[in-house]
């Protein structure tokens, strides 16, 4: 076989593999929509999205997922508020400020946090954090939005930190040296030069970290409390979309209204994460443009 034919063959195999994974993803999506759409024969889209009662197994069931949507968003935003600054500042410390020796210890430890199974984090939240929150804040129950947000932030920080750190590290030293040569201090250089130059990588890290948080199931199932209400404070229990699906799917009779409704929740979740990722892609693309203009 000639070299060119071999090359073509390998190319073909890889094309096949790539097509296979895309087809599989597409089929999963198709399945999701096929199993979810039938619920709209029983309930209108508006009632489904904006209805505020979720009683899927009643004789006259109510399929309103508004509290679930708000639950997902509130917990994701709360974890973002905690995880973004912590993750990015840790990355800045490791990449720019810390001694080499200290950085070599801190970095693997942060990355180790990412390998923690979510069920372990959930268990930790349930057994250790919940009773602590009850005592510390003097609240009736520790399984709530605050606890879940805290645990999700814990899961998102390693991703945000390690990707941001890589981005900060790969900022060309010529840029930083130029800044120092103009008389800027270390801090001014970090804020005005290094961070803007690495912004595309940092935002990728933030998005990957947060998409882990919004789709995470086990942790919210264990520590969010599971009450399908629109939370009035950060200490109220919530029921995000993934935990609803996980808790109810096993017992929902095949092809019942409840089954279709759970798939429709999955569609909603899918659409939201899709929009989220699309927006993220756009942001990182936009900042990449400015980076190239340096």
């Amino acid at each position: 076989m000639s070299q060119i034919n071999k090359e073509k063959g390998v190319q073909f195999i890889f094309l096949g593999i790539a097509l296979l994974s895309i087809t599989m993803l597409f089929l999963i999506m198709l399945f999701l929509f096929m199993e979810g759409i039938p619920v709209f024969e029983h309930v209108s889209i508006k009632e489904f999205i904006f209805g505020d009662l979720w009683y899927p197994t009643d004789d006259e069931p109510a399929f309103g997922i508004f509290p679930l949507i708000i639950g997902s968003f509130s917990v994701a935003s709360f974890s973002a508020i905690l995880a973004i600054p912590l993750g990015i500042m840790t990355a800045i410390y490791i990449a720019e400020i810390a001694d080499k020796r200290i950085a070599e210890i801190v970095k693997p430890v942060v990355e180790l946090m990412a390998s923690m199974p979510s069920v372990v984090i959930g268990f930790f939240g349930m057994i250790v954090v919940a009773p602590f929150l009850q005592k510390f804040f003097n609240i009736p129950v520790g399984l709530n939005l605050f606890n879940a947000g805290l645990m999700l932030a814990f899961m998102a920080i390693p991703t945000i930190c390690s990707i941001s750190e890589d981005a900060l590290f790969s900022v060309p030293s010529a840029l930083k040296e130029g800044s120092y040569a103009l008389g800027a201090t270390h801090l001014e250089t970090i804020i005005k030069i290094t961070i803007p130059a690495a912004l595309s990588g940092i935002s990728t890290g933030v998005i990957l970290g947060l998409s882990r948080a919004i789709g995470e199931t086990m942790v919210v199932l264990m520590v969010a409390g599971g009450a399908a209400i629109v939370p009035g404070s950060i200490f109220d229990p919530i029921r995000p979309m993934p935990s609803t699906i996980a808790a109810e799917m096993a017992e929902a009779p095949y092809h019942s209204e409840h089954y279709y409704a759970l798939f429709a929740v999955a569609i909603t979740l899918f659409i939201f994460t899709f929009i989220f990722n699309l927006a993220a892609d756009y942001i990182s693309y936009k900042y990449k443009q400015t980076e190239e203009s340096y």
Partner: protein
Amino acid sequence: MKYLIKSIIYLLFIAISASSLIAGELTIKGSTTVLPIAQKCAEAYMAANPDVKITLSGGGSGNGIKAIVDGTADIGNSSRFIKGKEIKLAQSKDIYPVPFRVALDCIAPVVNPSNKVSKLTMDQLKNIYLGNIKNWKEVGGKDAKIVVISRDSSSGTFEVWKKLVMNKERVMPGALTIPSNGAVVQAISKTPGAIGYIGLGYNSKDIKTVKINNVEPTEANTLNGTFPITRPMFMFTNNWPKGDTMGFIAFVLSKEGQKLVTEAGSIPIF
């Protein structure tokens, strides 16, 4: 030609009856509440009768009874009695479902051990779960918010609670829902103001059961019928059972089988 068809049918009949005799297969389907009992009994029964193979699956009480009506299972487990609609459907298919009461289940309201409240009425319990009673001082406890813990709407325990305590009214949306009996025990032991409900088999010293109308949730009070939140668990067969099906049901109802019922966390019927 007629003779040929007749003989084929005859041969087929012999083959089918022979295979069912040799293989000794038993299919059991239905309620997840009865499943642990069926599982323990099936393991013990298969160990004692190695030629019998038992296939077990869950799917809920409705599916268990449906399997009997459709003939897809030999035994259908159910944590409720058969409904009128299901009997009519069975009759239309010439199926005669026979119930066997194999165990009892008692669902006990539980609170944190530090809670002073040790008894409630059914009405108070219902109003707590409706969200009308919000503070422990309204039912004789200290001034603290009641944290209401319920189960997911698809759980069998929740179904009984809803039927017997809530009278089919809705549990308030603000109630915490927790995915398993074990997790409810865990949450209540860590939350001073919490109230929840569990199958009596899951009771532990980290939590405290509450008397209802002055009756304590115990095995004895379940058997004598004074405790109000109990339910029988059934195994249904098509017609009076024969062969291995009979053997298995007899085993579940034997002294040894009822001991396994206790191990599975339910209450034996004798």
